[in-house]
């Protein structure tokens, strides 16, 4: 059986590769890709030599900002983010885990003031070994990354 992936290359745009399996759809929401007119290719649970299994997103005709690239690290520290121009990789983002993120997540604590007041969410982000933890600025509760939903 052929292991190669039959996904066509994009001429211009951004390729987010080596995404931790299962995180691609959260990154789609993070970047609000579901609301854009750009052509998006999403691959889930693809074979990967490095990760075993991975997700992949190709965004045609949109270049991510440095901030957007860094925010992806929260969902997938292993992700590689490359800018494509005329079918060639012209830039590889050097990403790092942001220490805070605002307006991105929803606090899952039902008793948090952000559940009842219209207020921009604000989380501090820390890495404990391989685990990414988010702490709500308001209620001070700490959550695993996968407990926290992206606001849409």
């Amino acid at each position, binding site marked *: 059986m052929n292991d190669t992936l039959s996904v066509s290359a994009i001429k211009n745009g951004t390729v987010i590769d080596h995404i931790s399996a299962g995180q691609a759809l959260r990154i789609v929401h993070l970047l609000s890709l579901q609301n854009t007119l750009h052509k998006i290719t999403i691959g889930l649970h693809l074979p990967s030599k490095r990760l075993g299994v991975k997700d992949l997103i190709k965004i045609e005709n949109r270049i991510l900002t440095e901030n957007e690239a860094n925010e992806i690290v929260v969902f997938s520290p292993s992700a590689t983010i490359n800018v494509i121009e005329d079918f060639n990789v012209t830039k590889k983002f050097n990403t790092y885990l942001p220490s805070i993120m605002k307006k991105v997540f929803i606090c899952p604590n039902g*008793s948090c*003031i952000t559940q009842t*007041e*219209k*207020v921009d969410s604000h989380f501090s982000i820390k890495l404990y070994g391989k685990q990414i933890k988010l702490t*709500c600025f308001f*209620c*001070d*509760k700490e959550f695993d990354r996968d407990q926290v939903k992206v606001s849409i």
Partner: protein
Amino acid sequence: MTANPFYQRDLLSSKDIGLNEINLILSTAQKMKATSFAKSLTDKIIAHCFFEPSTRTRLSFEAAALRLGAQNIGFANKDVLSIQKGETLHDTMRMIDEYADLIVIRHPKEGAAALAAQIAKHPVINAGDGANQHPTQALIDLFTIQECQSRIDGLSMALVGDLKFARTIHSFTQLCSLYDVRLYFVSPSSLSLPDALCDDLKKRGLPFSFHHTLEEIIPKVDILYLTRIQQERFNVGDYEWVNSPFTLTTSLLQKAKSNLKILHPLPRVDEIAREVDHTPFAYYFEQASNGVCVRQALLHLILNKVAL
């Protein structure tokens, strides 16, 4: 005159306070308790905003402000506010900030004080936000322990009851982590200390352990700190299930160390039998009375450039 790191500062969480700062608060409170000082807040207005019921915290804050010469405004019940008409906490706080020099806030939602502080130009003191924090109570607890044991370092303390939802326990445990103390946590397993707080204690290397009965820890400790089950944080069925697992009686105190003191942030429900009030171990009413001098110290430090 001492430099004052609290001037115009919010007090939202025990995590905001360092050891030297605690010492400044405790020593200022000690001076406030020992003698009456010139009224240092005669030109100030304090807003006491209690969106949730309170007896000791609200009245001791108001008494502290009056003793320092300040004037009080505020409310003890959200039912009298325009919040009933749909006004947000944001707008309520923005308006009160125009009327007062300092805002004391208690609110059932966690993070409400942090939001108020984000909105207000004037300093905000968290007088309890849901099950999250109650830092001024934790300072009163430390002051009381220092008073009744003449030290904090080296003590063994048991924290008993609802360790999951009791904000006094969360704030107090964080302050304890700055000292050389041994902690015993006694609770039903469903109400044990949140993992994040346990992780903090581990990082600081503080010795602690978990227990399910009072009998096994009473002979070991210098401080027995009881809390009530936080009924308002439960669904009705869940509350019935966990209610009153611990009741301290005089017979349980037979093996207690002679210097043991019992604390409770009050109100109590069934955690301490009335008969215990008459033993030399009971110290919870003194603890409640210390609320005034410690809150005087905080108001004085936050609203004056120099400490006493």
